């Protein structure tokens, strides 16, 4: 049944731009129903700010169904907040209690510069995909879809990895600001499938090295898995590392022959 939360204190990060310093701004929400989503609470706060002649809090969001990966809030120090397997937009106020203080911050990672307030620039993720996160299959020449049988367990495992929504929670949660879970999810999705075999090793190599040029290194904290709204397993990082190692060994062999 519906309950009403009272007296919430929000400490919201406000920052004008990438090169300015930011600080927390405190707002009080006197009353809100627990049926409201977390972002609807911010909508209401923003309406109030506009009414008061102030600028609305800038934050990224779009589908509000947990699938587009646009929303990106650090809530009380947890990426996407307290509910496991849930993106910020799907978080509802029933997960909070009256009198709570809620700290809202942007993703914090050097590869994700803050654009303004709670919005960050995640285009480094796109650079990783552009480096090899695809199967080269130009439009028009594909054979009949059932000519490539894919065993169900393989297809299911690829799908588990492919569910990644590219939100960046893994990076935000990682003490090193590493993007290994994101990169490994994409590599695993494609490298498990028969269609992905032709470019398997070049893909692993190109994507890992692009990742390394932007992000920190993985030291197996496992925070990424815990923060992932799609609960992608950290196992994919092991699979990525195996393919990367093989790619390097193969390259070495080829070099020794030339």
């Amino acid at each position: 049944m519906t309950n009403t939360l009272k007296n919430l204190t929000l400490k919201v990060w406000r920052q004008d731009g990438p090169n300015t310093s930011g600080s927390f701004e405190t707002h009080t929400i006197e009353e809100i129903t627990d049926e409201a989503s977390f972002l609807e609470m911010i909508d209401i706060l923003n309406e109030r700010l506009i009414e008061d002649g102030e600028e609305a809090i800038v934050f990224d969001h779009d589908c509000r169904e947990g699938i587009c990966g646009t929303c990106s809030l650090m809530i009380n120090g947890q990426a996407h907040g307290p509910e496991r397997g849930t993106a910020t937009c799907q978080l509802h106020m029933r997960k909070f209690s009256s009198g709570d203080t809620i700290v809202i911050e942007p993703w914090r990672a050097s590869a994700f510069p803050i654009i303004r307030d709670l919005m960050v620039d995640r285009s480094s993720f796109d650079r990783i995909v552009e480096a090899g996160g695809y199967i080269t299959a130009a439009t028009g020449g594909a054979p009949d879809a059932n000519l490539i049988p894919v065993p169900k367990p393989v297809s299911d495992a690829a799908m588990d990895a492919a569910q990644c929504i590219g939100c960046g929670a893994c990076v935000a949660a990682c003490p090193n600001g590493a993007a290994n879970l994101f990169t490994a999810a994409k590599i695993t999705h494609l490298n498990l499938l028969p269609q992905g075999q032709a470019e398997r090793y070049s893909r692993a190599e190109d994507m890992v090295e692009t990742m390394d040029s932007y992000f920190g290194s993985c030291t197996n904290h496992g925070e990424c898995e815990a923060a992932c709204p799609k609960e992608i397993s950290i196992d994919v990082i092991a699979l990525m590392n195996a393919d990367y190692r093989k790619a390097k060994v193969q390259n070495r062999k080829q070099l020794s022959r030339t």
Partner: protein
Amino acid sequence: MSSILDSKTPEGPLADKWQNFKANEKLVNPANKRKFKVIVVGTGLAGASAAATLAELGYQVDAFTFHDSPRRAHSIAAQGGINAAKNYRGDGDSVHRLFYDTIKGGDFRSRESNVHRLAEVSVNIIDQMVAQGVPFAREYGGMLDNRSFGGAQVSRTFYARGQTGQQLLLGAYQQLARQIGQGGVRLFNRSELVDVVVIEGRAAGIVVRDLMTGELSSHSAHAVVLATGGYGNAFFLSTNAMACNVTAAWRAHKRGAFFANPCYTQIHPTCIPQSDDFQSKLTLMSESLRNDGRVWVPKVAGDNREPHLIPEDERDYYLERLYPSFGNLAPRDISSRAAKRAVDAGQGVGPKQNGVYLDFGEAIGRLGRDTVAERYGNLFDMYERITGENPYDVPMRIYPASHYTMGGLWVDYELMTTIPGLYAAGEANFSDHGANRLGASALMQGLSDGYFVLPYTISNYLSEWLNKSVPDTSHPEFAKVENEARDRYNRFASVGGTRSPDWFHRELGKIIWDYCGMERTEAGLEKALGEIPALYEEFKKDLRVTGGTDGLNQTLEKAGRVEDFFELGMLMCRDALDRKESCGGHFRAEYQTEEGEALRDDDNFAHVAAWENTGDPMAPNRHVEDLVYEEVHFQTRSYK
């Protein structure tokens, strides 16, 4: 009535038209392709697939998205699946059957030739997406699995759990990313189209606003493709993403592109009912749930017992009762209206009595909880997150919500609008779904347009421009359009009123929902046509946008989008008023059968209504494209 609209439908029997087109179209040779620049606006299924394919062919492509990454487009939220006439089940499917189902599903208000082409290329889409690594659901033998969807009696829907749209969009995005990485496509992210530039009667380019800096810039090209989605957010509450808007299509309309059938909007029957007044959006529960869920309400109005306390014989499984041959899989428009009638009759359930049950009790008994979890687990989880109720134990509550818009920019067979060189693809055009879209057909159409139609048809236009010069951004028209856009944003920022853009959007949405939603009447539409302009006047005087026009300002962005919804809202109501019949998603209460079904008027309304902007949003010109059926015959659409 005038008929200045030329659909450019190719000659020959229906099944040969697409082949004939391809045999006779003008081509651009590979070495010449790089001399042409094409702008693609929007990077959802239609935009990403078009941009990637055009770049593969060798054209220079500039792609624009207002998101931070192409992967965010709202195609990503499609859940259930994508249709294709593969007949892998051997259950009697064929290109012709998919074509026929789509025409019938659209209530005989779509263009036959376009729909047939869609059915033809549907099989190529599945091949293409599998080759790109889309992890569609498989059977244990490794072959592709299928499920059923509304409005069809065969299983032709391919799916990737409840995230088919996500997987298809990622497939298309990856092809686009490959082209970006290789330099075939230049991507402009966080860039919103604010106007289309038309010079000497042809599309010459666009003006965009960099959402990070507020800077306006001009971009010229030989052709412009708008793949900018639908206008379902005109209702404010819809299943669309928050940023979905009509601006690109509307700006094109204001520059001369005709807007077709704006009153054809799809209200999806299975969404989570509204829970409070400040709700920001409604969430869809996939139509695929109706494969196993049974829809019911209590037989007696006002029965507010817990659902498990209501015995079987006091429940009304109204879809099974009214439409025995399709049952719970009756098409969307029909299911939505049936739900509205039940709620209007006081049989609604839930705290606000604004829903109907979608019950999995029988399916869990028949299949076991594990099988149900495997099929729908992620949807059940999502439902629980939003409502706090567990659908394994308590029936889901659902109610219809705005979901998709069949209307859009008028396009000919080649997907060109009435402005030469300006194309519209995917949901942004009106072309394939008539008055109602069948489930799992939006993904099909987006990818069909982007992968398999535009790349063929665009050369027919571009070939004319080989070695001829086209105006670049130094042409004064670009500066003029940029200035108009700048003035517009300055106007929003300087009104200094009291209400936010969101407030106006919510109020506007209520008017459109009440009078131009699931059921329309002449009196209601007349009323809306009084209220919308009045609210628009208030918007002009009482809008408050805080922050300036320089730099990032989400409130300012919203103001521009809301203003375009005002004018569109007037056109939707005008179109609904003038279409004096009921068909598909357009239900006029005055025109119904004794049983309450939509009553078409094929003698007077078997046509597309394409509206021309006159500068006065209350007085647009209505043009007509007659729908000529060579292959199918008008029938009363029955799912009984």
